[in-house]
């Protein structure tokens, strides 16, 4: 036992925060995605229609997307620890209110406004920015580990919610979420999360010390580092990353909603379609970690463009291959590129614009991702209803992804990223010696 504890002291403290927040994200995503489990229960208890319940979900999606930049700005101002604590506490309180709602109007208010707004405090924007401040050299793999929690949350906790609803009803299941936030999320954040390595006298990645030459060189700010987030709007990389990220939101949102339905429209059984979606989710988790590891070793823009390119091939397979082949090809090819763009885009934003305003900038790109995706899901459905086929939708996504691929590749990472300023500094130093 003694040797075990000795070993833990050799692990950089940032990794405890990564695993802690991955677990919190796992629980949070699981709770949010359990919404679908309760729909039938609400229909029966409130004697309402699915359409009425849809309004709550739609409001929630818009509110969550719009709130992202504001939470980003709050982290930049107050640090992520306090935002995460308030976010977890208020979201838990929101679920407590949800367990007591008497009708569908309160559902729209509590879910659409309160929970969707407060959950922004423990959203992907906030946790990725927290990790961005703790890691520099290993930022990519750290973010990938963090996001793997989000990927697993729905797959494991939604069946949990489904069983619990069968056993104790939806109200007590929601009370169970309150306990998860109160007894799991808040204690983890309270005990582990610190705003930055400096608050514990450490440096990012835990490599070197505050006064070493290596640390000083690694602390070189990127050329485009901004003190005010608006300054980033006048630079090209922000728009390159944001435009590509909108296409990312469009492609992932469309497939998350329409994949199984496409399979059914092509005569594939819903069970097989859903199984393929499960394979997609599994491949996604494995490749996410691989991409994170690779992104710490090669240029992130290259990987990001490649991820979009591979995803374009996946969509093209859905159009040109026989349906059964297209289904499984996409499950593997598309799954390999599913969430991988998130750690790459977040890392590049931090690399290029520095850490001072990274919260606001990440929030803005996430907002564009969410709203762009939401709008195009609706457009894709409308096109399908009008034409009876997804071919035009998927071809449109292929074109968008190819454009996003070239946009990502065109980011001048070596010129603007802090990672490569370090290398230049070291090279200059080496040449002088």
């Amino acid at each position, binding site marked *: 036992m003694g040797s075990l504890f000795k070993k833990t002291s050799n692990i950089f403290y940032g990794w405890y925060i990564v695993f802690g927040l991955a677990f919190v994200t796992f629980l949070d995503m699981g709770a949010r*995605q359990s919404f679908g489990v309760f729909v039938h229960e609400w229909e029966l208890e409130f004697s309402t229609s699915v359409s009425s319940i849809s309004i709550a979900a739609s409001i929630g999606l818009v509110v969550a997307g719009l709130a992202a930049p504001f939470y980003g700005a709050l982290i930049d101002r107050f640090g992520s620890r306090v935002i995460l604590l308030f976010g977890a506490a208020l979201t838990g309180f929101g679920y407590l209110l949800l367990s007591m709602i008497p009708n569908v109007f309160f559902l729209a208010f509590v879910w659409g406004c309160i929970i969707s707004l407060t959950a922004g405090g423990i959203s992907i924007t906030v946790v990725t920015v927290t990790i961005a401040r703790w890691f520099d050299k290993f930022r990519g793999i750290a973010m990938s580990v963090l996001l793997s929690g989000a990927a697993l949350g729905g797959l494991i906790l939604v069946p949990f919610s489904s069983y619990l609803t069968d056993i104790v009803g939806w109200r007590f299941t929601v009370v169970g979420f309150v306990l998860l936030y109160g007894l799991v999320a808040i204690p983890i954040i309270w005990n*582990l999360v610190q705003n930055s390595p400096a608050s514990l006298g450490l440096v990012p990645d835990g490599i070197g010390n505050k006064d070493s030459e290596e640390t000083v060189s690694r602390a070189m700010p990127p050329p485009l580092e901004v003190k005010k987030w608006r300054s980033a709007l006048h630079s090209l990389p922000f728009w390159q990353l944001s435009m590509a990220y909108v296409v990312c939101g469009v492609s992932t949102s469309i497939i998350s909603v329409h994949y199984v339905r496409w399979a059914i429209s092509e005569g594939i059984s819903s069970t097989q379609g859903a199984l393929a979606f499960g394979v997609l989710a599994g491949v996604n988790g494995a490749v996410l970690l691989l991409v994170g590891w690779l992104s710490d070793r090669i240029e992130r823009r290259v990987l990001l463009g490649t991820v979009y390119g591979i995803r374009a091939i996946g969509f093209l397979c859905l159009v040109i291959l026989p349906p059964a082949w297209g289904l499984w090809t996409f499950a593997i090819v598309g799954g390999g590129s599913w969430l991988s763009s998130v750690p790459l885009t977040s890392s590049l934003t931090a690399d290029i614009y520095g850490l001072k305003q990274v919260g606001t900038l990440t929030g803005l790109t996430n907002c564009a991702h969410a709203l762009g995706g939401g709008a195009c899901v609706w457009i894709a459905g409308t096109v399908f209803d009008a034409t009876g086929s997804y071919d035009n939708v998927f071809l449109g996504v292929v074109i968008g992804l190819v454009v996003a691929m070239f946009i990502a590749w065109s980011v001048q990472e070596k010129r603007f990223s802090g990672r490569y300023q370090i290398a230049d500094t070291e090279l200059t130093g080496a040449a002088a010696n």
Partner: protein
Amino acid sequence: MPPLIDYRLHHEGPIDPTLLSWIRSILDQFFGSGLIFVIILSLLILIVTFGIIFLGRRAKNQINENHSE
């Protein structure tokens, strides 16, 4: 309301209702009513929580001790 907005409602993320029912049908074979699944997962969540907090606090204390030395 467009029908696919209704469809979207059932997702709220990447969990499709058909996928969920498929996962349930597999889990049902092992856990029956699901009570055991709920109990096991609840215990795992608590154990992981205590584990993460315990190890994290220990690491933080060691860092503080190292600084004080």
